[in-house]
């Protein structure tokens, strides 16, 4: 029994990583109806920028918030320059654009900061949290930040005019435009927010997985799995999905014989496929009804 509860605790702490990433994935999916395959790389680049700032002697929290601001602006810039002209293009072209972006960011980061693995500091320390060996204060802090972020987003979308406008632009673009919402800028805003959330996720994950240009590869896939499980239309679902994927991954690794570390990834992917087949809208997502 103790093994079981320990594994759940460990699952929750890895799940926090996935939850962060899934939140960013859902944000952008809400805004543009596409899954951004370059999301992880954008987060990685932001993390490198904050690392560079700290190398220049800027204190952690200043670098943290500066990076969030910069990522927000960069996200908007990427949308305005590269993806706005593709808004009407087929999905296929957009996916190709994401792949191109992925390739550009990954390679530039490799050139600027090279591929050696770097340590990344944590503001929360890495002592055991409440005397447990399985969850450190950093992971607890990460869970805390994720939940704060979720609450903040909830209030933003429910109680502010901009949040309302963004929801309107996402669900019924035509009608939103008719009531005077600038849907094009709402999409740009969505990119900016997704990029900023991605930056937060990256900076929180970096102390755990270490900083290098390919650090986000695996994390992004788990983020996708979490977002799909929770429902691509629900930020709350993404976070819950993240924790569930973390727990599921740990339990499967412990209790199902033959599932070692090497099969953890296929398990996450099997999860994606089975969720998509059984309940495509995810646990918390809205079912989309198409009018023909």
């Amino acid at each position, binding site marked *: 029994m103790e093994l079981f509860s320990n594994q759940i605790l460990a699952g929750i702490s890895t799940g926090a990583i996935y939850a962060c990433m899934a939140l960013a994935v859902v944000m952008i999916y809400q805004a543009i109806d596409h899954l951004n395959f370059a999301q992880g790389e954008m987060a990685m680049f932001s993390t490198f920028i904050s690392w560079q700032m700290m190398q220049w002697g800027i204190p952690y929290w200043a670098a943290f918030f500066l990076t969030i601001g910069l990522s927000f602006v960069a996200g908007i810039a990427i949308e305005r320059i590269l993806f706005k002209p593709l808004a009407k293009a087929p999905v296929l072209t957009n996916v*190709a654009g994401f*792949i191109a972006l992925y*390739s550009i960011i990954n390679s530039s980061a490799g050139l600027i900061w090279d591929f050696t693995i770097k340590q990344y500091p944590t503001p929360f320390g890495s002592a055991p949290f409440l005397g447990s060996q399985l969850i450190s204060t950093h992971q607890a802090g990460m869970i805390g930040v994720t939940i704060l972020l979720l609450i903040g987003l909830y209030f933003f979308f429910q109680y502010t005019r901009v949040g309302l406008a963004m929801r309107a632009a996402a669900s019924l673009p035509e009608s939103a435009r008719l009531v005077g919402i600038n849907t094009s800028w709402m999409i740009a805003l969505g990119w900016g927010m997704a990029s900023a959330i991605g930056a937060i996720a990256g900076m929180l994950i970096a102390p755990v997985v270490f900083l290098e240009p390919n650090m986000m590869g695996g994390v992004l*896939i788990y983020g996708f799995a979490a977002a799909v499980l929770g429902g691509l239309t629900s930020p709350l679902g993404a976070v819950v999905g993240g924790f569930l994927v973390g727990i599921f991954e740990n339990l499967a690794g412990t209790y199902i014989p033959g599932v070692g570390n090497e099969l953890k990834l296929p398990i996450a992917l099997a999860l994606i496929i089975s969720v998509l*087949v059984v309940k495509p809208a995810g646990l918390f997502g809205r079912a989309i009804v198409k009018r023909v």
Partner: protein
Amino acid sequence: MSAAVEEVVTEAPAVEAVPKRAMTLGTGTSLVVLALLILAPLVVKNFVIFQLTMLLVYGLAVLALNILTGGSGQFSLGQSAFYAVGAYTSAVLMEQYNVNYALTLPISGILCFAVGFLFGQPALRLSGVYLALATFALATAMPQLLKLNFLEPWTGGVQGLVVTKPDAPFGLPMSQDMWLYYFTLAITIAIYVGAVNLLRSRSGRAFMAIRDNEIAASAMGIDVALYKTLAFGVSAGITGIAGSLGAIVVQFVAPDSYTIGLAIQLFLGMVVGGVGWLPGSIVGAAFIIFVPNMAENISKGLSGAVFGVLLFLVIFVVPHGARQVAIFCQQTVAKFRKR
């Protein structure tokens, strides 16, 4: 649970509709291309022959994806998985059971058709980005599955398998590379002709009807589920044959040769070649084989970035890929003829 209503009318189509005629080349151009492909290996070095063979192999794989996406409008980022199954089928049959290399091709074709058909079943319920995600998952999982311990006696685990290169038959005075080139070329042409005919047949028209409007297609009496899974099966089968050829040509299979990277390359090949334009498959294959090399020459550290920038250029300047260039050339030629 509240339901969101989505206006289908205003949505950009997942895939640009391509008229049936615009899917192939004219007879004259086809003959010129064919002659070039037949004569090319006589004048170039062995390494270039090897590259040309890989060009045909990738061309075949891109063609398979083109049938799926350009024909029936379904996505796949998972072609590398079918390619891997085909490659491994050939390698295992040739090395562990001493089966003749030519005989392994139909076997892996049939096997991959079955795998694709079965994968098409759950994929039926998905479309657009969800299908991309599910196939993406398949592609990422495949290398891990190939490394499984209990498959190791056959697959050789992480080490992979070395495949022996076949000699030219009947004592033909040809190097092994050249023989393989012509062998691959013959199969590619056969499959290309088959694919063109398939798209012109009743089944091909059913694919396209589903691509353009699923509901209208089912109203016309097309069994949507059957034809969608069939498209997946055919595409997987052809990809499997390409995988087999690839394994024979490269003489080596290992799990890490068939990662998601390969699937992405094939996808890019299709976009660059022009979705739904079958001859574009070869152009797309040329893009994914030669452009990374070129990018490496321009700047070693930034090759990925150069590749990405080139891809953006293609998307912005010629969004319909090589098809657009071909149509432009055709119109220019027609203008000159009128004068």
